[in-house]
């Protein structure tokens, strides 16, 4: 019989699907092979984009030197730019990942959850005053300063931006003055500055959300109204308190509810991690419902929850939770930067030299001034004051990122110069992420900021710290002086007497000394097992890497033929010549990186003969409907990577200074 081929378009004419169907005739046979792309389209494309971005991440680590000097965010944006260029040249639209809803509901929560979950709690609570000071007052200072000065700049006729009025300038300033958690964390975690500085930068970028939300809403509201009344300013202040305290309140409530729930989950261990994620996400969504600061809600939820939950859940669940939180955060971050690059190319821009340059300049200037002034005011209240080097890094580390980008897209279209704002925001983000992000590491070394050796944990430290805490508390009692030790003591008593009884299942108080001791012993035990008997693979992978290494520096892909077997399947064969002479046989599985229009997944197998010639055959799958198939392969032979299960590795888990949870294999 005849095969009917139906070409159907989706509603927005962007996607085609081909459905092969047989007419209902007498001679119809059973279709052996059918294809229905439309049905799986959305999940399929999501998966492929995630995979592509993740392959990019794998690819970066091939050369360690790159990731050392260039933060991953920059690399991801660059790859995104390339992909965006390709897509733009064939007029394909990228998926709307950075649209308001998708970004704020799906992309941002995992990152903020990860930040909140792995905040080092003790330094955080010690510095909470400074953190809030910088977050609230600092952001206000920046917004108002930048807004006003931009308005002044707009008055200059030469720049042709006189039509932007004060409210719009202030609105724009509110958007770009907020330091972005995603960008800052990805840069700062690799650089080990001293604890105080780290926690202030970290905390500031998380907690300035309240101010940003309020300012954004306020100026948005005001931009549409012809005039501002004084009562609006008061309402703005009131709204700030509602937003900030409300966010924190919701977070704490959900944290307690989560802890309480985990008290009863001893029989359903498998779904214990679920509660953590659901409750924190719920906190985020409820906060979004009331338009209060959702970032603060999820951060406080994670902070509150972590302490009690980790005592209630099993060891395995604890590890799972930590691992999944990290994973989700990393995926989100990767995707955000990647799509930042993609969307940069595909949006419409309006360039204006004066406005953009002045924005960059003013942002730097105001941030620097702000940090200087604020530090002078708060230094007397700090035990460890910030010196000038710290202040410099504090100011220089104020990177802007994707949150500003998403916010600028949601500006109402009634604002005439929206495209200019979009372009300026993108420039701002690119500038801070690339220039400041790349230069901050050499700068830190150059000006010799106090660093910290974060990975050092010993029993001695723990014991001495405890002793000194007790000493200080005792001396304070002696002097009759109360400081935050008093409140800490009170809180701990309240905690022990009431909260722990309610929220924790097995109320056995355990000193941190004992806990740390157990942890360290377990770590030692597992290290010994790892290196002595365990990993057979460790040996051979080192061997194979040894041989393959000379190749990796000098192989190049010379010839690449690609055959399209059908519209969806193609076989590419490439021959590459290695320039160095080494006698080895290695069979390596390559993960080839391929950039193509509608995404394709490819696997390739390569065999190298005498180290001279590498033949690689790759098979790639791409959905039907791609216009043309272009690809290039980055062939890297030494991709046999092996990650031994070693708790002390810090490179895989750079984001988390606290180390990893205990492995589950020794738990009954």
């Amino acid at each position, binding site marked *: 019989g005849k095969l009917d081929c139906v070409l159907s378009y989706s509603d927005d004419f962007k996607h085609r699907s081909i459905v092969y169907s047989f007419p209902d005739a007498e001679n119809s046979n059973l279709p052996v092979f059918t294809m229905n792309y439309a049905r799986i389209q959305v999940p399929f494309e999501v998966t492929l984009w995630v995979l592509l971005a993740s392959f990019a991440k794998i690819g970066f680590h091939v050369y360690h030197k790159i990731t050392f000097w260039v933060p991953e965010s920059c690399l991801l944006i660059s790859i995104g730019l390339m992909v965006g260029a390709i897509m733009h040249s064939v007029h394909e639209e990228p998926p709307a990942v950075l649209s308001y809803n998708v970004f704020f509901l799906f992309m941002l929560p995992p990152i903020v959850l990860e930040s909140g979950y792995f905040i080092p709690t003790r330094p955080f609570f010690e510095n909470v005053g400074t953190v809030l000071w910088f977050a609230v007052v600092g952001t206000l200072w920046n917004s108002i300063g930048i807004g006003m000065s931009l308005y002044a700049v707009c008055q200059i006729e030469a720049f042709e931006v006189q039509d932007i009025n004060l409210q719009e300038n202030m609105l724009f300033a509110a958007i770009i003055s907020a330091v972005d958690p995603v960008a800052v964390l990805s840069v700062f975690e690799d650089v080990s500055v001293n604890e105080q500085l780290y926690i202030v930068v970290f905390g500031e970028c998380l907690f300035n959300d309240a101010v940003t939300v309020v300012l954004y809403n306020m100026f948005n509201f005001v931009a549409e109204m012809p005039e501002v009344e004084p009562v609006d300013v008061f309402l703005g202040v009131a709204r700030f308190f509602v937003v900030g305290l409300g966010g924190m309140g919701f977070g704490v409530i959900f944290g307690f509810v989560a802890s309480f729930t985990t008290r009863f989950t001893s029989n359903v261990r498998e779904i214990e991690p679920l509660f953590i994620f659901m409750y924190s996400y719920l906190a985020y969504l409820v906060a979004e419902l009331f338009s209060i600061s959702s970032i603060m809600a999820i951060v406080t939820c994670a902070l509150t929850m972590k302490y009690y939950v980790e005592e209630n859940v099993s060891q395995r669940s604890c590890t799972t939770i930590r691992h999944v939180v990290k994973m989700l955060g990393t995926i989100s971050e990767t995707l955000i930067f990647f799509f930042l690059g993609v969307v940069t190319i595909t949006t419409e821009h309006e360039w204006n030299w004066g406005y953009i340059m002045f924005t960059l300049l003013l942002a730097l200037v105001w941030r620097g001034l702000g940090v200087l002034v604020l530090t002078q005011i708060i230094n007397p209240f700090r035990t460890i004051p910030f010196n000038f080097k710290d202040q410099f890094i504090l100011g220089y580390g104020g990177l802007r990122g994707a949150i500003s980008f998403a916010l600028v897209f949601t500006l109402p279209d009634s604002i005439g110069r929206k495209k200019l704002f979009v372009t300026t925001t993108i420039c701002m983000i690119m500038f801070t992420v690339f220039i400041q992000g790349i230069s901050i590491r050499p700068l830190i070394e150059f000006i010799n900021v106090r660093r*910290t*050796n974060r*990975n050092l944990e010993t029993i001695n430290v*723990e014991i001495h710290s405890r002793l000194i805490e007790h000493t*200080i508390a005792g001396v304070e009692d002696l002097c*009759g002086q109360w400081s935050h030790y008093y409140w800490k003591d009170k809180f701990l008593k309240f905690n022990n007497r009431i909260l722990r009884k309610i929220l924790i299942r097995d109320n056995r108080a355990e000193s941190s000394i004992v806990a740390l001791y157990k*942890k360290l012993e377990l770590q030692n035990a597992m290290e010994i097992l790892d290196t002595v008997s365990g990993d057979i693979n460790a040996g051979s992978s080192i061997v194979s890497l040894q041989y393959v290494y000379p190749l990796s520096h000098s192989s190049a892909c010379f010839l690449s033929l690609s055959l399209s077997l059908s519209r969806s399947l193609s076989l590419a064969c490439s021959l590459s010549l290695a320039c160095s002479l080494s006698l080895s046989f290695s069979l390596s599985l390559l993960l080839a990186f391929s950039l193509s229009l509608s995404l394709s997944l490819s696997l390739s197998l390569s065999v190298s003969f005498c180290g001279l010639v590498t033949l690689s055959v790759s098979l790639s799958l791409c959905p039907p409907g791609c216009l043309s198939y272009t690809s290039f392969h980055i062939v890297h032979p030494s991709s046999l990577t092996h990650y031994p299960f070693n708790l002390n590795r810090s490179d895989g888990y750079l984001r988390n200074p606290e180390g990893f949870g205990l492995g589950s294999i020794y738990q009954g």
Partner: protein
Amino acid sequence: MGSTNSTLSKIPNVEELVQETGFTPAHIVRLYDRFEALDKEKTGHLRPQDFGAINRLAINPIGDRIIGAFFSPGQETVDFHSFVRILAHFRPADKKRPKDPSMPEPVNSRTSKLKFAFQLYDQDKDGKISRAELLQVLRSMLEMQVTEEQLESIADRTIQEADLDTDDAISFEEFRKVPPGGALRLTYQHGALTQIRFIIVKNYVRFDNGKQAMKGNRYLKFTLPC
């Protein structure tokens, strides 16, 4: 200001105290008021029992050690001058102090603070923290939570980490080298909200690539949680 002045006049040798300890006169007045409040019998001296009247100090795990630090060996009482001198240990260090080797170390320098902390451990004042002394401290801090065996394991591990000249005790020099304040707290943090505030003010280890090799790898102790 009138009451301050009048209180100041009651204290003998105020200027000398100010000079030696670096407290401002206002601080000294406050401390004097506190001293008088503790000294119920108005003898001008404090005895250990007077300290015991402070409730919260009494339930502090190392409360008795702190009280003991005020009394020099052999002395039964503490007068106001000694009281203030000991408390001067807790003042923040003066960063701008010129490092003059001929002058004695000021009371609130980092070294003096470390010595004070060391003395809390070293009750018999032989210049070393022996295993027994460490065990005592651990016992008082950990009280009921652990068994005697676990205490001994912890003490062993502690000495092993810090003991560089393998004499099974921690001398003051070894004590100084332990870098407190660098590590971030980990998994089982119980929301303890303090930092090493007064005693070690600026202690940042210069970051280098090798992490400190743990001597614990020499032998293995399987003391898994019970």
